């Protein structure tokens, strides 16, 4: 299973490297959403405070695009069928695609973070660097697991462009909530109006715990359910 996962992940990342679709299209898209948020919200003091939320919103929307792409690659020339016939371990396919998706997400998030710092004049408290990094990693795992699972369910189906957001967005809500709260703690964002002055870095860690539970639950569910889901033509 792990061997298959490595092969599949390497394959997906090679495809991305050769086609540069993420770097050329998805990253600009994510960056654009950050800019559009600023346009819509219009007030600098607000954008600073909601920067963590906007970051994770942009990431979530980009997740949908990335998942669509990950499975369109498979269905384009019937590769998914061939994967089935070849008897490649479905759990391995799942983990491999999730891994590749996670790597792409991490790249995306790194650049989004830079974007947030630049566009929203956010200053991250250096003491919060560890929390930020860990949160991002754990949340990314959760997103990758859940995205690959639901992507597999919708793969090749008619109407999948609208089905996937409908299925995925409710599920990632806990990640959105938890990761945003953790980021708020890590950034040391102080609203200045007394509402969130009590947020300290230590407050962020319980959220990371919840994110870890999320990732573990869906990782396990995915390994078990991906095979049966891929099964029915």
């Amino acid at each position, binding site marked *: 299973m792990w061997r298959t996962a490595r092969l599949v992940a390497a394959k997906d990342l090679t495809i991305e490297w*050769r086609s540069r679709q993420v770097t050329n299209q998805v990253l600009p898209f994510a960056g654009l959403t950050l800019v559009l948020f600023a346009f819509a919200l219009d007030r600098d003091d607000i954008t600073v405070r909601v920067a963590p939320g906007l970051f994770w919103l942009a990431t979530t929307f980009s997740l949908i695009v990335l998942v669509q792409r990950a499975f369109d690659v498979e269905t*384009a*020339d019937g590769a998914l*069928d061939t994967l089935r016939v*070849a008897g490649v371990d479905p759990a391995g396919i799942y983990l491999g695609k999730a891994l590749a998706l996670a790597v792409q997400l991490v790249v995306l998030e790194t650049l989004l973070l830079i974007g947030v710092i630049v566009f929203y004049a956010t200053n991250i408290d250096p003491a919060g660097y560890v929390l930020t990094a860990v949160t991002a990693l754990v949340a990314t795992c959760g997103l990758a697991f859940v995205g690959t699972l639901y992507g597999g369910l919708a793969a090749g189906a008619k109407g999948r462009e609208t089905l996937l957001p409908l299925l995925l967005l409710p599920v990632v809500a806990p990640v959105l909530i938890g990761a945003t709260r953790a980021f708020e703690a890590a950034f040391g964002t102080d609203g200045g109006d007394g509402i969130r002055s009590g947020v300290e870095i230590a407050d962020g860690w319980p959220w990371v715990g919840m994110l870890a539970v999320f990732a573990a639950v869906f990782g396990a569910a995915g390994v078990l359910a991906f095979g049966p889901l891929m*099964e029915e033509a």
Partner: protein
Amino acid sequence: MPASDPANAASSTDAAAPVVELDDVVAVLGRFPALAGATLRVNPGEVLLLKGPNGAGKTTLLRLCAGLLPLERGHATVLGHNLAVDRSAIRSEVGLLGHQNGLYGDLSVRDNVRFWGRTAGASEQEIAAALAQLGLDGRLATVAAGRLSAGQRRRTALACLIARRARLWLLDEPHAGLDAEGRDLLDDVIRQSVAAGATVMVASHELERAQALATRMVTVSGGLVVASEAVS
């Protein structure tokens, strides 16, 4: 006694156990009964030609033998496994080449064959050999699959099939899209794999060429197997 006896590779119990045994099989696509009671028996080492009009059910029959479609009615055994019980058991031993090639457009030819080969446990030599067998080891090896011509993509898909070392080959109109040289190459490849112990089922409209290859011919029509004749 042939040098390589495929029957011994197939099963240890009955030397003449058929590779494929279909008994009154009904398979549906949506609500349409693509196979309406097909009965067929394929012995080890045979090259079976499936002929018949479009829409007769040839593709469905091949996909069923690959374990991709569920059985609605009837009985089907492939390589000793009962398809009604477990369709996934035969997966790694069967190779299907359908209308699509199953390639990744952004990967090079070599990367494609390498991926499909290595997920089936092939070694680097076997992968290189597969590429060489189809004339893909030169300049073409580094070209992205999406930029190849249809014929070249077909050849790449065949290389992937060889690299996976399947025991049962299911080829759905494999000659389509190939030029004369490619078709000769395909025939050679089929002969070589049979010599190495595989069994082949080919659905084709290229009757002359396929008949030269085949050991037996069946006609598929209206979801049924209606005729069978040996080819001399």
